[in-house]
């Protein structure tokens, strides 16, 4: 089920296609040189989408192999693994080094156990009821409580969402209650038992670095990858795309900490940035009010036909060349000598520069989704009037998908640039970002205006845009 990101074409091949393309190509695999996919595609990521049952099997396998390796009970193996982020090798190393200490550190055994009682009757310290010794149970720490109190203790804890961290009821006792002990006491309480097992499973997945819950709403899928990196995974079931490491929206080339910082900053400063969200600007030449209704930043005034850039309102012609300067923020070189107020103003201007571009691409992405709808209508119209067949026009969808992918990456280059230190590396980054920006706008312009089935020009543009995108990621994606 290994999935590659590249397969985003809208074209569907039916499963019962009698010709097996994969086999056809695999046949003469022998004389094809094997290349590292990472070198070709910096975003290449091997992962699997698993169901709860499959993950349970996976966890049980590691529990079983550890319990066989160290000759310990599966219960103990499970607690040890959970306490060590499911790193078997670390558990084995620690356990072989000092078994009794490892069990104490894992809060399974107490540093010094209590003596076992001898009398037949005993008063439970929680409910203060004297009962026969048979009604009592205890953990390795030896603190005895009646079974009814244990059950209530578990119910109260589980109803508060606590599962793997439930501990003994004695004062100052840190010993944790293992899963088997809880389940044994709750064997007649199906509801609470199921709730417990559900929470325990969630705790296990969350503590396992190779597993990540799909963040899609109500999606039960769990993504598994041996490579713990900030790479893009797409849920097979709900199609949500997210970063494997942090579970948030995919954010290359920005890394997990930086994007978090950026999003918090944007949320904090939302009021300041609100005015940017206005949808209209005035044409720089004839000053007529223009609303942006497509994704492309290359605007043409419907009134005076002036071509300009939506972001900086500059003449579009000066944008297309090598000297695409609109994405770059020019810092005041003397800012350190300015007053505190001037510095604050400069900091705000800088932030707004990046925020405006970030926000604009996010909006463009949404507008381009609408463009796709219009594209469908246009194609229908063309086909009806005899201009090519439906198949002839499919390339437009492929290019729209590619455009979305490129624009998405471009959007996430802005927080990256915002937090980058000034210097030659930032200059290189901004140069590549500007190149990508220019090619994406060209592509967007061409898709919105594609009128023929002549795909050569557009496919050429697609190729250039994607090359720019992968070049930027190859140089700057550091996961």
């Amino acid at each position, binding site marked *: 089920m290994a999935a590659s990101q590249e397969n985003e074409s809208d074209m569907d091949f039916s499963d019962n296609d009698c010709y097996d393309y994969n086999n056809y190509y695999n046949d003469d695999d022998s004389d094809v040189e094997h290349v590292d996919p990472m070198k070709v595609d910096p975003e290449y990521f091997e992962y699997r989408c698993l169901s709860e049952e499959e993950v349970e099997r996976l966890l049980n396998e590691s529990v079983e192999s550890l319990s066989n390796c160290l000759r310990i009970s599966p219960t103990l193996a499970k607690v040890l693994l959970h306490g060590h982020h499911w790193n078997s090798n670390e558990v084995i190393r620690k356990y072989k080094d000092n078994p009794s200490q490892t069990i104490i550190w894992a809060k399974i055994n107490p540093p010094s156990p209590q003596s076992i009682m001898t009398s037949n009757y005993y008063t439970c*310290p*929680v*409910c*203060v*009821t004297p009962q026969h010794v048979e009604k009592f149970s205890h953990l390795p720490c030896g*603190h005895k*409580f009646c079974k009814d*109190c244990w059950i*209530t*203790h578990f119910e*109260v*804890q589980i109803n508060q969402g606590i599962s793997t961290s439930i*501990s*003994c*009821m*004695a*004062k*100052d*006792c840190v010993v944790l209650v293992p899963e088997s002990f809880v389940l044994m006491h709750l064997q007649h309480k199906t509801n609470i038992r199921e709730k417990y097992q559900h929470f325990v499973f969630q705790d296990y997945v969350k503590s396992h670095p190779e597993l990540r819950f799909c963040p899609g709403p109500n999606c039960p899928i769990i993504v598994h990858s041996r490579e713990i990196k900030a790479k893009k995974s797409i849920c097979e079931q709900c199609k949500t795309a997210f970063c494997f490491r942090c579970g948030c929206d995919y954010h290359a080339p920005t890394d997990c900490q930086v994007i978090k910082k950026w999003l918090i900053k944007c949320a904090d400063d939302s009021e300041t940035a609100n005015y940017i969200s206005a949808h209209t600007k005035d044409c720089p030449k004839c000053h007529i009010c223009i609303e942006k209704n497509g994704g492309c930043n290359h605007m043409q005034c419907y009134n005076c036909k002036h071509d300009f850039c939506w972001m900086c309102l500059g003449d579009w012609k000066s944008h297309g060349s090598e000297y695409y300067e609109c994405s770059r923020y020019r810092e005041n070189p003397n800012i350190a000598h300015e007053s505190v107020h001037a510095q604050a103003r400069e900091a705000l201007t800088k932030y707004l520069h990046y925020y405006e571009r970030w926000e604009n691409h996010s909006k463009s992405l949404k507008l381009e989704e609408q463009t796709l709808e219009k594209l469908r209508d246009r194609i229908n119209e063309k086909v009806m009037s005899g201009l090519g067949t439906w198949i002839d026009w499919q390339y437009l969808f492929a290019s729209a998908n590619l455009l979305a992918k490129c624009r998405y990456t471009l959007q996430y280059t802005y927080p990256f640039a915002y937090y980058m230190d000034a210097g030659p590396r930032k200059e290189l980054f901004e140069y590549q970002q500007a190149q990508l920006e220019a090619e994406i706008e060209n592509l967007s312009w061409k898709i919105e205006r594609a009128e023929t089935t002549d795909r050569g020009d557009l496919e050429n543009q697609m190729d250039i845009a994607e090359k720019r995108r992968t070049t930027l990621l190859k140089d700057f994606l550091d996961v």
Partner: protein
Amino acid sequence: MANIAAQRIKREFKEVIRSEEVAKCAIKLDLVDNNYTELRGEIAGPPDTAYEGGNFVLEIKVPETYPFNPPKVRFITKIWHPNISSVTGAICLDILKDQWAAAMTLRTVLLSLQALLSAAEPDDPQDAVVARQYKENVEMFRLTARHWTNAYAGGPNANPECDEKIKRLVDMGIEEHQARVALSSYNWDLERATEQLFS
């Protein structure tokens, strides 16, 4: 109210009444209602602390899930302490939160609170103003805490200088407690306290 909770409180009530701490007048427990859901605790300020000689009254509410959940406790007597809110009396103490264990009792709680008065934890503050004063100027903190103990908990150590400053503000029409809070928050700087009160 659940059976176990009432059973436990009855038993604990006796435990405190019988205990040697009562004999030494260090802790005390009274019933507020007859169904054991609310109690009134009292602890003596520990010797050799700013709280020495004071008596601190506590509100104790027993939840239905007691003893599997901790009792809800807050100070009724106003107190100047980094881990206790000088406004609401809310307490920041681990055993009243996630470190509670069902085998703990109200006696443990009262004794732990008494221990908290002897050893504050300014890094885990409930009252940020008090905690900052504790860390920046511990002498000023002690003076203030002793003054509050005298003013609200019947402590014997009056500080004429503090009382004088409060009186100055009261003469200006400020309510006494409000004046005390302002002065305490500004290290008894009368000018800054006045400025804050009238701004």
